[in-house]
């Protein structure tokens, strides 16, 4: 049987125990605890402090007269503070909450803007590359269209294909070298193919005839290259649009 602790006996004496009925039952069943409890009862029963001496009905007035001279009357404004203290406290708390929310919003916005701003130069560079590449592919597409539409019956082709091909060839070499550093095999292969076509056209005799062009069309598969270039243009345009949208989102 588990005996009651001293603390439990004291709590029971002052009727502050949560399990009063259980303690009572235990005391009836356990002689050891019953004796300890009786001892506590005797002890605490013997502890009596002197009764307070009687004070007259005018005791309060006496106390007041003894302290009255040391008290300054309150000013009226103090009353106003007393009455409006809760309202002022609520208003101040509301102000703090609003200010806190505002500051938290600013901090959050700044915390989320920093990484975006940090990547801005890289994004701007990508946008420029995509823009000029799109322009290059556009010019290359037009050249290939002209090349593919020259009729076999035409003996002499009076088009500035050669000079255009020479200009495009220089640009294409630069783009091909730049793109080679990125991991885009489709674009790399297309630019490589384009360069061979441009090289052929640029190095052709001054006057290209239909037979020359037909040979180039056949040997260099310019129809296939034209398709490739159109696919790439669509892809580059989409990337450019996406990069532009990201840039706008960042600047918001």
């Amino acid at each position, binding site marked *: 049987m588990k005996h009651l602790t001293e603390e439990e006996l004291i709590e029971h004496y*002052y009727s*502050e125990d949560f399990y009063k009925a259980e303690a009572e039952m235990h005391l009836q069943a356990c002689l050891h605890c019953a004796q300890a409890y009786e*001892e*506590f009862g005797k002890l605490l029963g*013997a*502890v009596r402090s002197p009764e307070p001496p009687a004070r007259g009905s005018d005791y309060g007035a006496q106390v*007041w007269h003894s302290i009255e001279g040391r008290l300054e009357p*309150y000013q009226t404004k*103090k009353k106003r503070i007393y009455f409006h*203290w809760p309202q002022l406290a609520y208003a101040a708390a509301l102000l703090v909450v609003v200010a806190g929310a505002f500051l938290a919003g600013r901090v959050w916005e700044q915390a989320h803007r920093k990484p975006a701003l940090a990547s801005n130069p890289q994004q701007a560079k990508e946008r420029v590359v995509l823009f000029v590449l799109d322009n290059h592919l556009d010019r290359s597409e037009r050249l290939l269209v002209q090349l593919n539409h020259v009729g076999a019956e035409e003996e002499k082709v009076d088009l500035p294909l050669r000079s255009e091909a020479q200009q495009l060839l220089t640009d294409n070499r630069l783009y091909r070298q730049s793109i080679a550093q990125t991991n885009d095999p489709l674009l790399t292969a297309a630019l490589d193919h384009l360069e061979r076509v441009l090289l052929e056209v640029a190095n052709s005799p001054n006057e290209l005839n239909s037979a020359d062009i037909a040979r180039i069309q056949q040997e260099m598969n310019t129809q296939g290259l034209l398709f490739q270039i159109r696919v790439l243009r669509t892809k580059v345009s989409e990337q450019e649009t996406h990069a532009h949208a990201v840039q706008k989102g960042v600047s918001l």
Partner: protein
Amino acid sequence: MGNDDHALIRATLAGDKDAYGLLVARHSLSVFRVAFRITENDADADEVVQETFLRGYRNLERFNAQANFRTWIYRIAMNCALDVLSKSKKHTASPIAEEYDGEQPTVQLMDGSAGPDRLLLSLEIETRRQAAMEKLTPTEHIAFVLRHMEDRSTDEIAIALGIAPNSAKQAVFRAVQKLRQSLAPLWVKS
């Protein structure tokens, strides 16, 4: 009563000093009674009462309009009583020469059946009670008085002393243990 107290507080803060006089008249006797239970001295109890109402007036602006004035002024009274107890313990040499010595568990009391002897026992108990009360810390002293003499609950004691209910309960427990150590030998031969 509570609402009347609040009206008097508002009047006091509006500049009507005499309104506070009515609060003093209303609560002085109860404050005196508990102050005497703690200090066991007329003069000290009167001092506690005066100091309590002085502090109450000076801090009246801080009084929470939702609170109970009696509880609030009691808490101030407990602080004043603590000050008085601390002061008296600091400056007074132990008034009881016959302190209980733990190595001497029994005292030489005569048979308790005789009238004069029982009177002697009561005197011995009172002497030892006073000695034991002197040994209590001010917090234990006030907690025990409020619990044992004033029949206040643990929660009321905690509010009056501005401590947690569990701390109030422990203070009462420690006080009873100390009293038991001091008074237990009296029952050995009584």
